[in-house]
């Protein structure tokens, strides 16, 4: 893992059609030590800037002009495909997962899905941006916790302990083993045993790579 503070500040492009919010985010990120290289009011402009500036990260709203549907999401998918060096964070109003899987479909590496209200928590938000820029996946904890808390019948999930569920949720959020161990005050060794047991209970393959694991767990939770 290379979660090290980069020498140069991260270069960010922000796409958001509400001027006030766009400016606010821009100021916020600048103050947090990021380099806001450009801002866009619609998807076309975003794609242009992504190509021209090659930023480290692109932040985009889902709903954008002109169609006010999922233009931002489509642009994000396209950017990941076209410029793999640019990570994307999609800022969403949707706590449900209908857009999430479209975004993750190809490869969850360097992709983030964050709820809008998360922006206000500057530390969490910038942390998410940095993690995505470093190639991790970031799924908003609230989205994951709703999935985990869904009522189920006859599901192996019901046999998991509290602690195992907490590990599972963090895995679904895209956290690395190291981060999970740190957050839950566990030794990496114990954590690995937990994960191995859990995946076996759920009948999931023991994936070692984080991004594969994210998709597998999310898909399982959504089922």
């Amino acid at each position, binding site marked *: 893992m290379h979660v090290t503070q980069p020498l140069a500040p991260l270069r960010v492009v922000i796409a958001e059609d*509400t001027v*006030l*919010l766009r400016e*606010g*985010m821009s*100021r*916020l990120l600048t*103050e947090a030590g990021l380099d806001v290289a450009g801002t866009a009011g619609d998807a076309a402009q975003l794609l242009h800037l992504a190509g021209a500036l090659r930023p480290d990260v692109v932040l985009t709203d889902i*709903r954008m002009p002109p169609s*006010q*549907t*999922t233009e931002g999401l489509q642009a994000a998918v396209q950017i990941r495909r076209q410029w793999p060096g640019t990570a994307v964070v999609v800022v969403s*109003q*949707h*706590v*449900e*997962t*209908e*857009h999430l899987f*479209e975004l993750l479909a190809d490869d969850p590496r360097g992709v983030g899905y964050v709820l*809008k*209200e998360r*922006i*206000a*928590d*500057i530390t969490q938000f910038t942390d998410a941006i940095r993690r995505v820029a470093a190639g991790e996946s970031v799924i908003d904890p609230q989205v994951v916790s*709703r*999935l985990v808390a*869904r*009522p*189920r*019948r006859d599901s192996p999930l019901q046999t998991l302990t509290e602690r195992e569920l907490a590990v599972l949720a963090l895995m679904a959020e895209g956290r690395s083993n190291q981060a999970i161990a740190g957050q839950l005050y566990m030794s990496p060794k114990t954590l690995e045993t937990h994960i191995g047991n859990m995946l076996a209970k759920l009948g999931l393959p023991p994936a070692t790579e984080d991004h594969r694991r994210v998709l597998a767990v999310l898909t399982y939770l*959504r089922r």
Partner: protein
Amino acid sequence: MSRRLRAILIAGAVAMVAYEIVVSYVPGPPPELIFVITNAAVGLSFLVAGIAAWQRWPASRLGLLFTIVGYAWLLPQVGQLRYALPFTISNITANIYAASLAHLALAWPSGRLRSRFERGVVVAVYTWNTGQSIVSLLFWNPRTNGCAGCPANLLLVSGSNSIEHIFDVISVPVGLTISAIVLTLIVRHWRSARGWSRRVMVPLVWISFAVVALSVVQTVTGNLNLHVSNLVLYGIAPLILLAGPALFVASTLRARMARGAVGSAIVDLEPGAPPERLRDALARALGDSTMQLAFRLPDGSGYLDTSGRAVDPARPGQGRVVMPLGESGEAVLVHDQGLEHEPQLVRLTASAAGMALEHARLQAEVQAQLEQVQASRTRIVEAGDAERRRLERDLHDGAQQRLVTLTLALGMARSRAAGADPELESLIDSATKEAREALVELRELARGIHPAVLTETGLAGAIQALVERSPVATTITALPAGRFPAQIEATAYFVVSEALANVAKHAAAGSAQVTIRQLTGQLMVQVSDDGAGGAKPEGSGLRGLADRVASAGGVLRIDSPPGSGTRLEADIPCT
């Protein structure tokens, strides 16, 4: 023709027939019984046809003409009395019946002659047939010329056989010419008649054929001196004359039955039968194949009949009559003029047809209103959906963005205040918390108003989202991935949304299942649970949902036996 006159004529006819029978027993050589029967039958047949004609067509003089033929046929029978005067009268009037038959034929069916020329022809026939008899009587002495036992001829001037013979030679071509003219006129009448008029001419054609055939046979055998027995010639052959009156009486009976047939013809038409079927039924009922049923064009510029021909009610054409149906003037019957002789039948038919059309019009009106109501219901629902979409968008673009911006500003304020003023920090924290909760509530509210995901990604994503949110364990059995028209997607979505909300609220269910399948021509949406059942379809939620499904032209079924779960199924038309 007054009732009294009719009664007198009938009484006279009966008297004459009775007399016929009596005279066959008077002293002297008895007439052959067969002659008596034939004469009585033919005469009586015309009298009966006369009564039938009066009954059927009171306005026509046909009844009178039939009666006159009957009398003209029977009158010469006074000769049976074998006295000089009746014998002479009998011989004078022997051929008048033929003239009145020609009169009857030319005046068919109204009883009135069509033109001055035809009146002239009829006068000529009467004059010739009577005059010829008188003139030949002047020179005919029955006692010396073929009838030794006959009474005296009172008109006898000179019993010269040669004069009588010369007169006979002259009279044959004249008689033939007159007959040819009469026949030509009848043929012309027949050829110009259409529909009803032609049909009612059938008895006339038989009468004409019978008269011509009879006179040809009698003339030919007389002039050629063929040895055909008088019994055949005058006893049996005249029976052919019965054909005309018999057919007329039969057609009158049929016409009576036709009145009943009008009603059943209309009743037999199933509701909503096309107008051409109604026309055919009316044409059959009235016996007029030329009948047209015409409707006013929507722009009021004229009328078109059921086969698409333009009809001008002001100028229906030669021999055609227009009969309006109902009071609106929307439809008219155009029929053969001859039918005016059957005013009752026509009136009956017109009112039955008017009723059938009124029925069809009302039905079409109700149908149109129903369609309008259906369309307006659909529009109302669509307008409601559009309004919900607008509201949701306004919330998203307005209040939600502002709240996000607010939390952002609060976040920045928090980081500036960090470490400086703990009280301010905690104030900002609680403000942030409030703003965040407001944002969550607003998001839920907006989704409840209209799920943006439905317009953005379609039914599959929206249903997936509903299932994720459901507080009861819910699985999706089948869910088509494609897009559908907005109204159909919205309807299917609200069915699932309302059903899952009911499952959560009332069903006390352990699990629920959502199934959506695209079948031919429709989308089937099914939500079932394993809960308590007993859902009431008339509850306001389900009632509203049924209305909503109906507005999309679909049906909602609820199967909820107590204790065995609930199954909600909607079929939404989808092409």
